[in-house]
């Protein structure tokens, strides 16, 4: 069953149509990659799904419920959580504090309860701390959990961004360029990490430039060009798809990960 259904979403910025009538399904438990050249509308599509920008038309359905028009935090609470390009984290907190704060939506205590440190609030706190430590250990950040985030190296920051998203216990995780700026070894580690997250039962949609990583990791791939969906299929199908090669890559097969 499709966990996420994107139905004919369009986003216009003035005269520019960034995303044009794009529809697709995301199946429970799969890794779906969205590829396309710069300006193809990939990131806009992400923002539309996570409701950071409202679509001009069309809608997004999650578990049979229309989520278009909800606030971003409400969508996160339902289980659709995005990460950001580059290193968007809370820089003036330690790695552990970042992940603890990201548990806020699982908070059982009320704001007043938190203020007066009721038993519920303290139980929350202990639970969050434990879960945050577990997530950091899982992503290999256990040794740096008390380091201020702004002092962490690039690779760790990327993983921390994912740790923050995982803390919300997402059902669908939207990863925005998780492999950008990584060398081969780092990419291999990140690919293993994404697969591991999927094994935890999280459905993954990712936007990515790194073709070889995309080809390795994806169950299915969606190709965009000028805001229009030009192809959808398995990595093998996408590799052979004429319109993808012509319109999007227009180059040798090598870049497609052969």
């Amino acid at each position: 069953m499709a966990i996420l259904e994107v139905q004919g979403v369009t986003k216009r910025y003035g005269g520019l149509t960034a995303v044009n009538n794009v529809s697709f399904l995301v199946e429970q438990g799969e890794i779906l990659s969205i590829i396309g050249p710069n300006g193809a509308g990939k990131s806009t599509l992400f923002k539309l799904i996570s409701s950071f920008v409202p679509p001009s038309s069309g809608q997004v359905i999650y578990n049979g419920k229309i989520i278009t028009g909800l606030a971003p935090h409400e969508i996160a609470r339902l289980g659709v959580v995005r990460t950001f390009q580059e290193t968007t984290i809370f820089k003036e907190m330690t790695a552990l504090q970042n992940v603890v704060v990201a548990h806020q939506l699982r908070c059982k205590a009320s704001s007043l309860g938190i203020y007066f440190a009721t038993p519920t609030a303290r139980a929350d706190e202990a639970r969050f701390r434990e879960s945050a430590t577990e997530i950091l250990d899982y992503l290999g950040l256990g040794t740096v959990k008390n380091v201020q985030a702004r002092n962490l190296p690039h690779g760790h920051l990327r993983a921390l961004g994912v740790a923050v998203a995982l803390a919300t216990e997402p059902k669908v995780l939207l990863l925005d360029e998780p492999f950008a700026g990584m060398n081969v070894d780092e990419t291999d580690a990140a690919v293993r990490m994404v697969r591991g997250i999927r094994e935890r039962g999280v459905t993954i949609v990712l936007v990515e430039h790194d073709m070889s990583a995309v080809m390795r990791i994806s169950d299915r791939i969606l190709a965009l060009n000028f805001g229009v969906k030009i192809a959808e299929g398995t990595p093998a199908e996408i590799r052979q798809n004429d319109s993808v090669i012509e319109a999007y890559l227009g180059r040798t097969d090598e870049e497609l990960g052969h």
Partner: protein
Amino acid sequence: MDSAQTAIEAGAITLRQKLGFAAFVSTLFIAMPIIFGRSPYFITVLTNAAVLSFVSLGVWITFSIGRMNLAQGAFALVGGYTTAILATRCAVSFWISLPLSGFASAILGALIGWPVLRLRGVYFAMITLSLTEAIRLLALNGGDVTKGATGIVNIPRPGAISIFGLTVIPAFAGADPLPYYYLACTLLVLGLFGVWRLSTSRLGWVFRSLRQNEELAASIGINVAKYRVMAFAACCFMGGIGGAFFAAFHQNIYPASYTVADSVNFLLYCFLGGLSYIFGPVVGAFLLVISFELLQAAQQYQALIYGVLMIACMLWLPNGILSLDLRPLLRRKE
């Protein structure tokens, strides 16, 4: 720095912090009245500094969500008028109108804050600055309710509180400012404790997450708008309480009691003391209020010297006076 931060994070207080706070409280309640008790002038200056610190603590909360709030004067005015009107028209006791004034300001703050807090940076600062001016004009043109430019005068002094015939707090009478001073210090200590709880609880962490990145906060399910309004309302509450106190202290309130300059001052106290310290606004307010009074002797150069001192502080101590590291000095002495 790092160890201090982990201590704060765990909500635990170090022994040094406890001792420091105890020293601060006993200085306020015991040492100051003994030293300056006979000088109503000094007691009045200290009273002003204490309540201005309290009001600035509110502004400090809005800094923690990443907003530069220039509206605190407006909410002090709202609190002041609430107490003035309740006391002169409905004969409500000061002890009831004091919290009511806080709530009136908080509710108004929440209503105005909801749309306005979408703005960030200089836009938010500009609109809150206009708000201070707007509330002043509202008071000026409030007709019979606010009595316009004449203001509301002869506000009764706080009465006695008795429980079962036992007088807990005697009525504030005569020209002695000491009872007001004790009240001001009580407010300040309660305010400090309240803000400390807020800042060290997970609410404080949520507030700081908003300051650092609102989009990321929304993406992890934090209701950004709700927490912004919560922080702003808490700030306005403190503004309202401060305004109510001064209305009873001066026994009058005018539209010009709080102007844009006051809103700017509340902000300056926070800056000068240091934005990353809860004690920042307190240090800033006491230092500026007292130094301004001491400069009275310099007559016409008062504002000039004051200005130069301010600029010097901002230049050499951009993170506030509390960021001054005195440890190397102490070590050399040992």
